[in-house]
């Protein structure tokens, strides 16, 4: 999944953690049918370390990756924050990314409602563009635009339902 690096940052933010703990948390929340391979966890952490977004805390010199404890840095927090604030470019089949952002916003004590609002606005803006396209185009364009419109509408229904559940979700997963 494209959001593995930011997801790991989100899981690391509350407290430093080892790779295997991160994997377990990730799989419980986001990896139901596709657990994260250990190899990907460590390669991702390695890249985040290289980019200064995580640091290794208190590992014995020469210890293998499974002994390292990772902590998020200020640069990591900034990257996470930007990602959580930014609406995803609206296109059909976004569900997983939107879900991950909502969960990570809740887990990190940020506003999932604010994220859902900017995402709703982005979706509606795209739907307006498609509605304008429908007015002019040949029937084939209209039918294609309809396909996208119906899928974005489905996303919006999910956004609305999730917004209505935020209090409940925050109680269970928030901090």
């Amino acid at each position: 999944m494209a959001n593995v690096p930011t997801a790991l940052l989100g899981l690391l933010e509350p407290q430093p953690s080892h790779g295997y703990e991160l994997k377990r948390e990730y799989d419980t929340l986001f990896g139901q049918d596709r657990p994260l391979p250990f190899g990907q966890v460590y390669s991702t952490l390695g890249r985040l370390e290289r980019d200064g977004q995580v640091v290794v805390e208190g590992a014995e010199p020469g210890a293998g990756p499974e002994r390292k404890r990772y902590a998020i840095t200020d640069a990591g927090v900034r990257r996470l924050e930007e990602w959580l604030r930014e609406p995803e470019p609206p296109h059909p089949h976004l569900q997983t990314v939107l879900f991950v952002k909502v969960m990570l916003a809740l887990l990190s004590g940020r506003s999932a409602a604010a994220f859902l609002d900017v995402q709703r606005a982005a979706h509606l803006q795209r739907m307006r563009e498609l509605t304008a396209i429908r007015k002019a185009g040949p029937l084939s364009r209209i039918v294609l635009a309809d396909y996208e419109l119906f899928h974005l509408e489905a996303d919006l229904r999910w956004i609305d339902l999730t917004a209505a559940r935020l209090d409940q979700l925050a109680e269970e997963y928030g901090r």
Partner: protein
Amino acid sequence: MSTPILRAAKVTRSFGPTPALRGADLRVDAGEVLAVMGPSGSGKSTLLHCLAGILRPDSGEVWFADQRLDRLSERDRTRLRRREFGFVFQFGQLVPELPAAANVALPLLLAGERRRDAYRSAAGLLDRLGLAGLAARRPGELSGGQAQRVAVARALVARPRVIFADEPTGSLDSLSGEAVLDLLVDAAREQGTTVVVVTHEARVAAYADREVVVRDGVVTSLAATS
């Protein structure tokens, strides 16, 4: 900033113990097509009724251009509504005994126009909207979509400054709903009429220039993003 054509400021309104609006703020610019979205029971219809002078708020202000609507008497508000506003509701609410043409002429007759002129305007509008073939039919002889398009014609006939539409496609299938919205929005833009359309459907809201969301009796506008 120019004077908005409609404005609500800190509007509250309850029905018995149920608060429907708890401090709703809204500005609508002239010529704008605005969608009012939000979950069922959030206060959308109550807001529309307050803006249109159908309901009087418990507190707060409602302005139409430079007139304070909530201060007008019932009679003055009715007069203003007939002159300046058009309405489309979820179930057309056409008069069942009257043919479509007479239904469309009704707002003009109520405004005191002569019968012949009112019918001529109605026929002309039905024609322009591609509904001439329906003029002689009574509502019972129209499909839901056709009835709703006649209701749009009725809302437009007196060239109102604002059209208020409450879930205008709520009882229609998608294709008939599109036809109603195309008709309403195109005609309104052509005449420079402001439209406030209440809907819980994003596809309907996508016809508007802008949307606001009502939640628990308060208006939230979605910040436009990059």
